[in-house]
């Protein structure tokens, strides 16, 4: 499945959240990551994030798309990152 993850967390924890997400997903732009992910890896990622964030203060949203077939991704302005087969 394909996911888009956005986070809004206290600056004290922001680096840790980014580091964790980067191991599973592709960085797109500030506070946004996306990519194909297995169900198991998504669960792992969520468990790891739960340990970092303060549930009273921080928020992470994960949009889950079973397939990207019916969605489009349009960029206005700079293309900063995202999933790519090639570097």
């Amino acid at each position, binding site marked *: 499945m394909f996911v888009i993850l956005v986070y809004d967390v206290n600056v004290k924890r922001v680096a840790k959240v980014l580091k964790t997400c980067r191991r599973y997903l592709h960085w797109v732009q500030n506070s946004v990551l996306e990519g194909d992910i*297995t*169900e*198991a*890896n998504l*669960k*792992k990622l969520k*468990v790891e994030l739960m340990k970092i964030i303060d549930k009273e203060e921080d928020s992470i949203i994960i949009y889950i798309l079973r397939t990207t077939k019916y969605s489009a991704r349009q960029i206005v302005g700079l293309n900063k990152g995202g999933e790519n087969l090639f570097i």
Partner: protein
Amino acid sequence: MSDADIGVGGTLVWYYYICLRQVWLISHQITPDADDGNLILGRFIGETSYNREKKELAIGSSKMDVYHFNNGEMVVGEVKKSSKYNQSARMQLAFYLKELHKRGIQARGELRFPQEKKKEEVILDEDTLAEIERVERDILRLVYLQQPPPPVKNRFCKKCAYSEFCWS
């Protein structure tokens, strides 16, 4: 729980109640597909849950987690992903209790299912002991077979990391 080092250990007792073919394969180090989702998750939960009170205890070829040890009473247990494999989990723990008993340690068993926030107690009584001994003999018989028992479809196949191996 590591799959790498196995005699007749708790792991084989566990698999005995799921699939006899799996007992044979594991004992021949033919470990299942490493990128199977359920397997990854199981390993991850075992590694990351209950870390504070976790102490590993190795007896013979078995490894178990120890939770408390006070007033001469020991509580040992295992962390499992779900209670779907209840019988396996109970018998595996009973096997550990028996191993401890052999060494003169009285212990109580506790199964933990962190994802379901559930605990279950296991006690070693006469019947359980007899069953464990029968299973141990049967596992040895299986392990010495020249070939694995043929695959038989059961309710565990669907989520089994060996399913592609068995049914390809």
